[in-house]
């Protein structure tokens, strides 16, 4: 069975600072994708960043970047220059033949 673990139920960061959200996963598959989704109070899931497992280079999208450690099965998200609009639930997801979500990390951004 594939599992995704987010060990931080809540995180807090000051505006303009950097925060890292942790995610680990367990799988025996070799081909897969990893994602971070953001879910604001509206409850719509918004794609933040995507990583292909066969690529060693870490994905980057503007202020968002990941640290993908395939051997360690770790996939953390770094948010730089945090903004008030970044406040949301963040879900890590593993995609093999199905998409498996972690339980989420609630990110609070303080002025």
């Amino acid at each position, binding site marked *: 069975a594939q599992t995704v673990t987010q060990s931080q139920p809540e995180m807090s960061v000051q505006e303009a600072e950097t925060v890292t959200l942790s995610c680990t996963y367990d799988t025996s*598959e070799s081909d897969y994708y990893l994602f971070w989704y953001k879910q604001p109070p509206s409850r*719509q*899931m918004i794609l933040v960043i995507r990583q292909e497992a066969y690529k060693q280079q870490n994905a980057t999208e503007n202020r968002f970047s990941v640290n993908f450690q395939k051997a360690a099965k770790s996939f953390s998200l770094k948010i730089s220059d945090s903004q008030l609009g970044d406040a949301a639930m963040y879900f890590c997801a593993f*995609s093999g*033949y199905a*998409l498996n*979500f972690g339980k989420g990390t609630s990110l609070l951004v303080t002025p």
Partner: protein
Amino acid sequence: EAGVAQSPRYKIIEKRQSVAFWCNPISGHATLYWYQQILGQGPKLLIQFQNNGVVDDSQLPKDRFSAERLKGVDSTLKIQPAKLEDSAVYLCASSLEGLAGVVDTQYFGPGTRLTVL
């Protein structure tokens, strides 16, 4: 490009009533998913369609939930009869197929928030 559309956005019903949700995926996306998300939890897959065939419905409570995807495009999810524990957000998503059958990026609709009283 239009995103995934869902309706209604909100629904309040009494227990034992029936309810139906509608989803229109992104044009060209063969794979469509329905998720149930209970407050404080991550989304749980209910059913996955590839075109108009069911790929996975192992977590769909088939005694009360049903889903169909006619002509491989729009889909409806029905609950009959509803229970209190069905109160949740129901998310629809669609995707292209990735490499070697692996699921690639899923794009989500705005969801339907269901309250069962």
